[in-house]
């Protein structure tokens, strides 16, 4: 029983990370029909921005050593700037391009960022100690929950709440929802397209930063490709959640996190190395049963 509860907490924790990453991907997909491969690299940048550029194996914290009230805004700003620059340089000229073209373009952005990181920081994975004070466990009866996991879950719920409020209650949020529903119509009604897309990139950068800080503090390692699996699980979460639905992205994220943790816990020892392979097979199965995803949206139904 305790084992199961423990696994559920782990699943909620990992699911939170995937849900946050999936929200960042889903937001851009909703408005731009862009499957952003570079989202994983935004996450990597958030992590690498914390350390001193060097080829050393142990990372020296730089911005990461600052007080968190200063550090979090600085890192967020860096990631948001990278996201906005990639929009301005690559995606803005491609506004009229088809979805596959956008996907390849974002793949190119991702490749450039990954190799840029490699150029400055070297290819080897690095160890970094961010917020090591936070892994003290909290005891709830027999259940040991690391404080970091609690923080992760709380931060995720907080960010999701804030995003919902933003989208439902503010002027810009309404514009974004309108653009996601029907981009051209929204433009006719006076929504500035590039502004809304820039806003979406900025929010997606903020969400990516949250993932990088939480993920780095939990794993303690950095590598130029660290964002790739996160982005991959995020895509998958977006697809099985129902493309174009933010609620679907969150549901998908938690579902994928749950599946991964359960596989990790209950697969026989000899098969555990293939955990991710099983997780992706599960995803393909979900898609076969429900090709439109768990949460159906009107926006993505193909019309003749």
């Amino acid at each position, binding site marked *: 029983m305790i084992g199961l509860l423990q696994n559920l907490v782990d699943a909620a924790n990992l699911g939170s990370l995937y849900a946050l990453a999936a929200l960042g991907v889903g937001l851009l997909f909703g408005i731009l*029909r862009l*499957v952003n491969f570079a989202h994983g690299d935004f996450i990597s940048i958030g992590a690498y921005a914390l350390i001193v550029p060097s080829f050393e194996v142990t990372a020296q914290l730089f911005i990461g050593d600052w007080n968190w009230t200063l550090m979090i805004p600085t890192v967020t700003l860096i990631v948001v700037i990278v996201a906005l620059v990639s929009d301005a*340089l*690559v995606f803005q*000229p*491609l506004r009229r*391009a*088809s*979805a*596959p*073209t956008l*996907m*390849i*373009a974002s*793949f*190119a*952005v991702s*490749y*450039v960022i*990954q*190799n*840029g990181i*490699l*150029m400055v920081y070297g290819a080897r994975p690095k160890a970094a100690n961010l917020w090591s004070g936070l892994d003290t466990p909290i005891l709830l009866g027999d259940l040991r929950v690391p404080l970091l996991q609690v923080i992760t879950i709380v931060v995720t719920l907080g960010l999701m709440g804030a995003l919902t409020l933003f989208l439902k209650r503010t002027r810009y949020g309404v514009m974004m929802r309108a653009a996601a529903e029907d981009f051209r119509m929204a433009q006719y009604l006076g929504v500035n397209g590039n502004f809304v897309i820039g806003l979406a990139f900025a929010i997606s950068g903020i969400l990516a930063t949250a993932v990088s800080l939480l993920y780095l503090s939990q794993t303690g390692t950095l590598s130029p*490709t660290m964002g*790739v*699996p996160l982005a*991959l699980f995020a*895509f*998958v979460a977006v*697809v099985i959640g129902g*493309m174009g639905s933010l609620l679907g992205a969150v549901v998908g994220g938690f579902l994928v996190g749950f599946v991964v943790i359960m596989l990790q816990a209950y697969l026989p020892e000899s098969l555990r*190395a*293939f*955990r*991710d*392979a099983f997780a*992706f*097979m599960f*995803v*393909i199965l979900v*898609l*076969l049963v429900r*090709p439109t*995803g768990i949460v159906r949206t009107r926006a993505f139904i*193909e019309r*003749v």
Partner: protein
Amino acid sequence: MSHPSRASLIRRLWPLVALCLGVTAIVAVASLGGEELQVTITEMLIRLTVVVGIYVFIGNSGILSFGHIGFMCIGAYAAAWATVDPTWKQMMLTGLPDWLQEGQFGFLPAVAGGGLLAGLVALVLGSAIMRLSGIAGSIATFAFLAIVNSVYSNWESVTAGTSSIIGVPTVVGPWVAWAFAIGALVLAHLFQVSRFGLMLRASRDDEVAAKSSAVAVIKVRLIAFVVSAIMVGVGGALYGHFLGILTADTFYLSLTFVTLAMLVVGGVGSLAGAVIGVVVVTVVVEVLRHMEAGLTVGGTNIHLPQGSQEIGLGIVMALIMIFRPSGLTRGREIPWPFIAAGARRKPQMVRMG
């Protein structure tokens, strides 16, 4: 059309003939060069086989696949299982079936086996994911790439895991690779002009119209997927017998990116685009690689930092997508050269998606 004259046959085959002549000319000229050039050309030709294979699916169906390098991985390992020294296999690859552990096969059966296994996997996978819509399907192929990478890096008893398969006979030189590349071009051309190819291209240009004209879209997509996986699997088998050593990470994101870049730079819409893309990207990458290694000018070594090769390629690709979205060839095949310029048909724009 019932009695096509010889001239019109040549004209119909011209797009293929021109490409084959071009590729042959490159290999012939390069065969005069040094050792290093031979290696570069061989690798280019293997990539040509792979990219043409990928083109058969992506170019004709308009659906983006990130998973084809997974088929390359499957083909490469399958062929290596057949040709590696049995004593080494019995020591390291104890998970293989006995006949494969104890036997040693020739190069050609091994390559055929590699292609076949890739094709079988594509048949199973394809029957599942061809039903998905374009974008969901693309992401599913990406998930497939991740599955292949995860399985081949961790299945110690069959793939030697992270310690890699060594001692694959390096029998692939420029002319062997040339033969397979020409074969791939012929096959791709035949597929493209076959009724399946036409139906698939119709579904690419307008899926609804194709469906209402009785094109079984899912079926023709699946056929293309399998054909293309076989070709890419064969390419993988060649690559293994060119490198001599196999690691699962060879067949992951970088190679996926390079091959897709080749396709996009040349133009996804035509076979000529696949070939020209491979040649152009190879030249760009080689130039950048030499600049990375350094130029010695007057005693000082000037060189670009490590990684500029990849960044340069990424930038070239982004520029092409922005300024010439349908690639260098704009989706056209090589035109018949013997007509007055004014009489040529207007180029047709082919877009993906």
